[in-house]
């Protein structure tokens, strides 16, 4: 897999559901200095991504289960892989459930949630069984569409916004709040875990560190554009009342000179659906891939079907939007707090083994 594809996979899994509530989270915690929080969160995400990429590059052509088994033992590796499975399963199930709620509330009022959830699951199933190469190519194409739409929509929104609502850009006394904002932005930076399910080849992927860093920077720039254009339109005082802040801000923009495209929400919804599809598909792939490592005898298709069926059933559990959103926040935080130290320990073990070899 090429470096560009890997970078777009990172984009596909990270950029999507997390962005919809990001302006609210940042406005609440960092006010107009939210862009600083995004940069801090990017730095944290870069560290997590680099650790995973390093592990992949050190253990060529192997994925998380393989190298954790090498570095520890089968039993520990199984438990650690299960952590990834549970994390990714919770992520895509909740993203699917919550985004279905958003679509139901905004465009498809009478369509039942189960129908929306099913649509995402069957399309994700179709993509997942085609393998990571197909998904990677999808990520490249869809990624470009999402970036293009995102930049155009939000630059148009800027023209309708008010520059004064974006200020003050930086308040030195609020630095601690900016760090709080960065923690609250974690959901928008979740997803680098997918690199645990992708084998790297040193010869082909030696510049992946730069590619992934550049992609994280691009994601950060897009988040900053989204955040700034949203607060230019709505102001921080208003945006905090909306869980779907980004969507609400877009709906407050009307450009009569664009004629039939005067309402930007129509284009926004298309790009949002595509990005949600990528989020779900990649998390599903990660879940099924890790599971297939633990159960090598069961076919990949059967595992995918079982995982998606279970996810459908979990989506039917009675859960309000707020409960789901809080659970997703907690899952992304817990994922970061558990998986990052695990990866760091594995990295240290790799280093120790490497130096042992050298000594020998």
């Amino acid at each position: 897999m090429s470096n560009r594809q890997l970078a777009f996979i990172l984009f596909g899994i990270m950029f999507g559901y997390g962005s919809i509530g990001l302006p609210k989270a940042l406005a609440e915690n960092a006010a107009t200095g939210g862009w600083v929080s995004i940069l801090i969160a990017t730095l944290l995400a870069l560290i997590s991504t680099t650790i995973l990429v390093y592990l992949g590059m050190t253990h060529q052509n192997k994925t998380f289960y393989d190298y954790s088994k090498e570095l520890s033992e089968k039993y520990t590796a199984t438990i650690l892989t299960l952590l990834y499975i549970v994390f990714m399963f919770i992520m895509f199930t909740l993203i699917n459930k919550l985004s279905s709620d958003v679509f139901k509330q905004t465009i498809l009022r009478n369509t039942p949630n189960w129908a929306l959830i099913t649509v995402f699951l069957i399309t994700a199933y179709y993509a997942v069984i085609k393998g990571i190469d197909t998904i990677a190519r999808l990520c490249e194409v869809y990624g470009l569409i999402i970036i293009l739409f995102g930049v155009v929509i939000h630059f148009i929104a800027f023209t309708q916004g008010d520059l004064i609502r974006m200020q003050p850009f930086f308040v030195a006394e609020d630095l601690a709040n900016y760090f709080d904002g960065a923690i609250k932005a974690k959901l928008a930076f979740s997803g680098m875990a997918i690199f645990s399910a992708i084998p790297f080849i040193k010869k082909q992927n030696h510049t992946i560190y730069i590619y992934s860093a550049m992609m994280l920077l691009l994601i950060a720039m897009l988040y900053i554009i989204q955040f700034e254009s949203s607060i230019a339109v709505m102001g921080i005082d208003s945006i905090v009342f909306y869980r779907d802040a980004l969507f609400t801000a877009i709906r407050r923009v009307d450009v009569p000179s664009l004629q039939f495209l005067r309402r930007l929400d129509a284009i926004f919804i298309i790009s949002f659906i595509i990005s949600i599809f990528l989020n779900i598909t990649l998390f599903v792939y990660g879940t099924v891939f890790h599971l297939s490592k633990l159960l090598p005898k069961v076919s990949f298709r059967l595992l995918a079907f079982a995982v998606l069926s279970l996810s459908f059933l979990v989506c039917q559990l009675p859960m309000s939007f707020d409960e789901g959103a809080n659970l997703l926040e907690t899952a992304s935080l817990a994922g970061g707090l558990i998986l990052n130290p695990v990866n760091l320990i594995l990295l240290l073990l790799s280093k120790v083994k490497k130096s042992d070899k050298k000594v020998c």
Partner: protein
Amino acid sequence: MTKKYVSLLLVIMLPTLLLTGCWDYHDINMTNISISTGVDIVNGQIEYTGEVAKIAPAQAKGNENGGGGIGVYNFYAYGKDLEQARAAFDAGVPYPHFLGAARAVIFSTSYAKQSIAPYLHRIAQINDYRKTILPVISRDHPAELFKLKVESDISVAFLIEDMMSSLTKQGKAIYPTVGHLLSDDDIKTIGELIPYVGIEEGSIKYLGLAVLKNLKMVGTINLKDTSGVVYLLAKKPSITENLPGIENKNNTFSLLTSLKKRTFNTDYVDGKLIINIDMNFDATLNYQYYTESTDEKKLKVLEDLVAQSIQGKIIKIIAMSQKEFDCDFIGFAKYFRAQHPLIYRKINWEESYRNADFFVNIQVNIHNLNLADPNARTLYFK
């Protein structure tokens, strides 16, 4: 191979069947397309009124209210609150009401004095309402407005929206949307302005601006005084200034001003709020009532006179906001907060604003005589 295509077909077909095809499909003929909404208080009850588009079959029969073959009909419903009034409306219409095409929402003065917040929040949260819809306050009952036969546009709401949109494009008015009002209200320390309309000589007219404090109407600004507001708030204000002749007292200079640069600088010195307003204008001498020669010196005098006129209008509006309405409806708090965030968190803005000192500095440059040459002379000049 066939199996592959069958599964692909299934993937394509299922979403089509599961989404709009089954649940959210609505034929346009089976929908009440709302053009406008009016909210009033009549005999202690909420009056929910407005205009609904007549779809094709109605056009064939002709219509009384609309022009150009597109018609509207009016509706009236009453209830103790918004929900009951809406329920009363729903009980008498054949199809579900669609609000996404509404052009304007018209509040009566009596309703606006109580607070338009409930209806604005309704618009913000109800899915199909456009958040960029134009809100206006009417001096006369909205029901009276809807009864008027509009000759110049499709319907009352279209007329109001087109009128305000055209004036705003020309730089002679402001066009706040529901979204703007809600965003400003959430700041809590600033007021809002909203177009004020009414019936004059049998037709609907833009009468000026209504001032809102916490989304409650506290007064109005006459149309002739709104220039000061437009100079301060419009994106590209462009207003005609008339000045008496300098040598010929019967003459009048008609100048069109256009804003080049506007900055609001705020400060807080010894517990006193100071606001500096600096504005640069270009002006075009449209024409003179009687041709009077102009030279550089005279143009300089004219520039100073225009600057004084603009300054006077701005100072008048600021004085109104500080004394008459006791409300920062221009929104200087946004600028102060951006420039001095830490001080803003500590002070009582309303009190500071009441006693604030304003310094208004206006520069005007007449750069264009509209291609006229008032100094031209012929051989026969007397």
